[in-house]
């Protein structure tokens, strides 16, 4: 067959159109610019980087062996307290998140002001770290698990509320319309139309958030909000590295157990 005629332009192919290429290039450029800008101005002392592996090894050596004896008197109660903080905090968060999630879902609540307000609340809740929330509540209620529980609650509302809102927005229209056509009250539509649809997602979100809350509760004590974090804080301040080790191990164990529990419950109910 004929070779490609030299007078004909060879056909070309590009993966992306010019417009797409421009957009992608812009992103790549922005990323590189951000990296360069950050690297240039971040204050990092080179000697510290060189020293780091040695320091880490030193630290790990000092943490071994973990102080097993310390567990019963120093760790166990605090660990349980951490669990309670996480659980109660998540419960409170769910209670607050349900109305906010309903308000934020544009198909359930047709009022744009309510949507906006709810979204603003949820975003703010998520933007403030649980540790920072803990700081605030320690200032208000004083140190202790109350501050910790409220911190977990207020941080989790955003997470649960946002995902709940999204789950609500994704419910298929047809079922809701059928209910509304029967003249059902708004509350009934919620209970019998939306709730069965979002129920699996709801439990999944709740479990997921509880899992994360357990991890977060462990550190709240660092700012005085109760739980194992306080034991960790004092052990570190006193340079009792072997106690630090046992505390870290305890936290690790609780996190693993929590994951198991969550996976098991998930399998059973979903």
């Amino acid at each position, binding site marked *: *067959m004929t*070779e*490609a005629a030299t007078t004909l332009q*060879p*056909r070309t*192919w590009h*993966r992306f159109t010019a417009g797409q290429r421009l957009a992608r290039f812009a992103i790549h450029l922005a990323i590189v610019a951000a990296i360069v800008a950050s690297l240039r101005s971040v204050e990092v002392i080179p000697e510290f980087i060189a020293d780091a592996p040695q320091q880490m090894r030193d630290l790990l050596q000092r943490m071994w062996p973990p102080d097993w004896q310390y567990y019963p008197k120093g760790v166990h109660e605090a660990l349980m307290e951490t669990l309670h903080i996480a659980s109660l905090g998540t419960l409170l968060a769910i209670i607050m998140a349900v109305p906010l999630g309903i308000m934020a879902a544009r198909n359930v609540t047709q009022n744009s002001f309510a949507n906006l307000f709810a979204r603003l609340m949820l975003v703010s809740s998520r933007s403030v770290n649980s540790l920072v929330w803990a700081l605030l509540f320690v200032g208000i209620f004083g140190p202790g698990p109350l501050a910790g529980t409220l911190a977990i609650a207020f941080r989790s509302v955003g997470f649960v509320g946002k995902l709940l809102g999204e789950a609500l927005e994704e419910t298929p229209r047809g079922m809701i319309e059928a209910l509304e056509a029967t003249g059902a009250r708004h509350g009934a539509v919620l209970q019998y139309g939306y709730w069965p649809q979002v129920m699996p997602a709801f439990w999944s979100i709740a479990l997921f958030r509880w899992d994360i809350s357990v991890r977060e509760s462990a550190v709240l004590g660092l700012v005085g909000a109760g739980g194992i974090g306080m034991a960790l804080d004092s052990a570190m301040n006193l340079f009792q590295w072997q106690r630090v080790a046992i505390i870290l191990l305890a936290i690790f164990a609780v996190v693993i157990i929590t994951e198991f529990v969550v996976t098991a419950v998930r399998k059973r109910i979903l």
Partner: protein
Amino acid sequence: MTAAQQVTVGATAALSVRGLHKEYVPGQPVFRGIDLDIAGAGLTAIIGSSGAGKSTLIRCINRLVAPTSGQILFEGVDLAKARGKPLREARRRIGMVFQEYNLVERLTVMENLLTGRLGYLSAFTAWRRKFPAADIERAYGLLETVGLTDFANTRADALSGGQRQRVGIARALMQQPHLILADEPTSSLDPKTAVEIMQLLAEQGQAAGIPVLVNMHDVLLARRFAQRVIGMARGGIVFDGSAEALTDDMLKTIYGGEQWLH
């Protein structure tokens, strides 16, 4: 420029299978003692009931499945034992068409075609998508041949089954193969499209002058398009001859039972 090549497969067989044996569970072979020679342009159909080992055999030829023992000689390389570079170089000379098209769904038709050239390019060139101009030309040419010029930049998962299989065939042809394997290429298609696809396969094989080896379970299609038919049953080859020689009695031997024949 279309995909027509003047590749002459000489008197020596392009593909020679000797004593091929495959078992997944020890003691329960899928097939054994398979001897086969494929040479010259033309379509060879392998027929047999499900589980007779047709698909496994085809997949052993380009080593997607590893045979338990035996020899698969292709252009001087024993594919049963080859590894690494020699295996890849042999594979790029064998084009394969799959029952479920196996296109990369998220890529466009054009990109799927160009994956046919991956055996000839370095990973770096491929990553940067800097395909040689000749490859691009060939791709456009093949798109014309299979009648999908308008779909060059459509995503593969937006196509119908028949269209996807055309892309699959075009992808195989992009490799400039010396042999085409097809594993039940029409089983997922409606009867009319199935005929069109078999037609395309047969024509393109002839145009390129290369053998086409097709697994199929539709005997009518086999009779219509294949010059040679191989029947497999109970782990072995029980028939190897022209499509004309395929009598009803022979079919009974291959598939067993009579009800389905009439």
